[in-house]
């Protein structure tokens, strides 16, 4: 039985590898959508505005009556008006795109109706090419520890020193 167990564990670790790599790729793709590098993801805060006139204690007093940028700003010749409930709640209660997609119900549409969820381009047909994670040239080799590609010994050394995540075995 030992050989079989060995095979199993190998398969399991290969699966783990690809899972970890898929997670890493997903994380990277999410990072590429950020508007600012230094921000907790999904935060609706705008630190610049707060430090200006809101004391640290001001946070507790927020909630319904909190000021928004659009409230605070007064434009030349703008009539200040009382917004309707609809507009007010859109301004005050920010929802992430994921929440909006869930609420829109498009996930339950029949497949005959195209939606945001079905319109994504199909997967590529050609095999993907590996690029050196250090210099960007074709990456012939993969790090044994983290599977990131590199192109030669000098880039391998840079990788080991600076970037290797050492997580995937």
């Amino acid at each position, binding site marked *: 039985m030992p050989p079989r167990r060995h095979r199993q564990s190998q398969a399991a670790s290969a699966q783990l590898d690809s899972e970890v790599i898929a997670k890493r*790729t997903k994380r*990277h*793709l999410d*990072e*590429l*959508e*950020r*508007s*600012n*590098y*230094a921000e907790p993801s999904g935060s*609706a805060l*705008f*630190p*610049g*505005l707060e430090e*200006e006139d809101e004391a640290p204690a001001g946070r507790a007093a927020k909630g319904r009556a909190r000021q*928004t*940028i*659009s409230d605070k*700003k007064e*434009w*030349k*010749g*703008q009539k200040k008006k009382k*917004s*309707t409930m*609809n*507009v007010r709640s*859109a*301004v*005050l209660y*920010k*929802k*992430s*795109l994921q929440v*909006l997609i869930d609420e*829109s119900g*498009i996930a339950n549409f029949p497949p*005959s*109706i*195209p*939606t*945001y969820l079905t*319109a*994504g*381009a*199909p*997967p*590529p*047909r050609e095999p*993907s*090419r590996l*690029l050196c994670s*250090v*210099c*960007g*040239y*074709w990456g012939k080799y993969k790090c044994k520890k983290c599977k990131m590609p590199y192109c030669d010994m000098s880039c391998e050394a840079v990788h080991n020193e600076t*970037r290797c995540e050492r997580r995937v075995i």
Partner: protein
Amino acid sequence: MKTSLKIVVDNGAYNIKAGIIGADDGTPRIIPNAVVRSKGDKTTYIGHEITKCEDHSSLHYRLPFEKGYITDWDAQKAVWDGMFSAELLNVDTSEASLLITEPYFNLSNLQDIYDQFIFEEYEFQSYYRCTPASLIPHGNLFTLPDLGSPECMLVVDSGFSFTHVVPIMNGEIVWSAVKRIDVGGKLLTNQLKELVSFRQWNMMDETYIMNDVKESCCYVSTDCKRDMEICRTDPKSNAIVQEYILPDFSLNRSGRVRQPGGSLDESYQILCMNNERFMVPEIIFRPDDIGLEQSGLAATIATSISQLPEEVQGMFWANIGLIGGNTKFAGFHERLMSELRTLAPGDCEVVLYPSNEPITEAYQSAVALAKRPDFAQRVVTRAEYLEMGSNACRRKFHDWKPIEKDLSKGRDPGKTKTGRAREDEEDDGSPSVKRGTRAKGKGRATGRRQV
């Protein structure tokens, strides 16, 4: 309805292109769709005010759009308030009519919020909401004025949030064949930021500067393998490498590409752009280079066309228009052309129509539409909204969603140009097939080939 002021707003996730019909027909006002906070002068700039900002280092951005859809309505309202105010367009919105663009496949719950802002907050007299590509048949991208647009066209819209391939038949988007690649200008700038920060200077907080580096230095390679080898041989000196002189806002120096041979003192910081110049825009053509499991632009166009009625596929290959800021990269259309040729059937002619003004092309087309006498029939009026709410808009603005069944009563199919197509969609649940069949004969009879 009395003739009123008409306003056109192409509401992009990066820049809004806006203007008043009659006053801004030639060129729109370009308004950054963002609220930024400058660390340098500790000031917050909203929308059009951003042009006043001089210190562009470490700007903190708040964008109304997330992945192409409006999620931050506070920020969007701030930018719109400023845009309509006496500081910019200076219009009384309650006396005006509006044409505004929305993203492809906009969510219905978001569309309701558009309606609420436009009628409840700004109290426009009437408005029309549509996607940028749907405006293109009204403009001049494919033809000279007066000749009209082809029956079948495919619009590639590559903007800030993503890249869409949008086939249009007889003026109507064929939604079942619309495809999206999740690569846009925002992702490209962020990717460049990351590469440069790992390889040279930490530019992770310098979105503004890196966007300028991208626009100044990047190009689409027509031979990626060749260019890669050129960059490999001598990374410091080759036919591709370019030096970008980083700005120093404290000295009021802006960034620029260094001209060959120009001497510089040591106070300047240099950014070396080698294979980054083409490997960043390359992602539009090879999304899998960053692990994104989507086909590149050319293959996505081929997929889209393959889902259109066979009889008219040739006309789509022969009428491919390019709009959106990313299509400005040098080499973009040459590369796309060479890849499309290998994918198109041998007997098909492939013709690209790159826009000379890809950022304002949709705005220009919108102006043309808003000036047409029948534009008034497309809009929803404030009175209709007050009576029926967002249902009035759902009924009239033709988009990706099938028209709800209960809407058939009280409909007048002959009233608008799109009446017939809409009627088809109401009959069964699969708009594309039905519409395709209907248009087959028509497309063949009246379609022309562009040379």
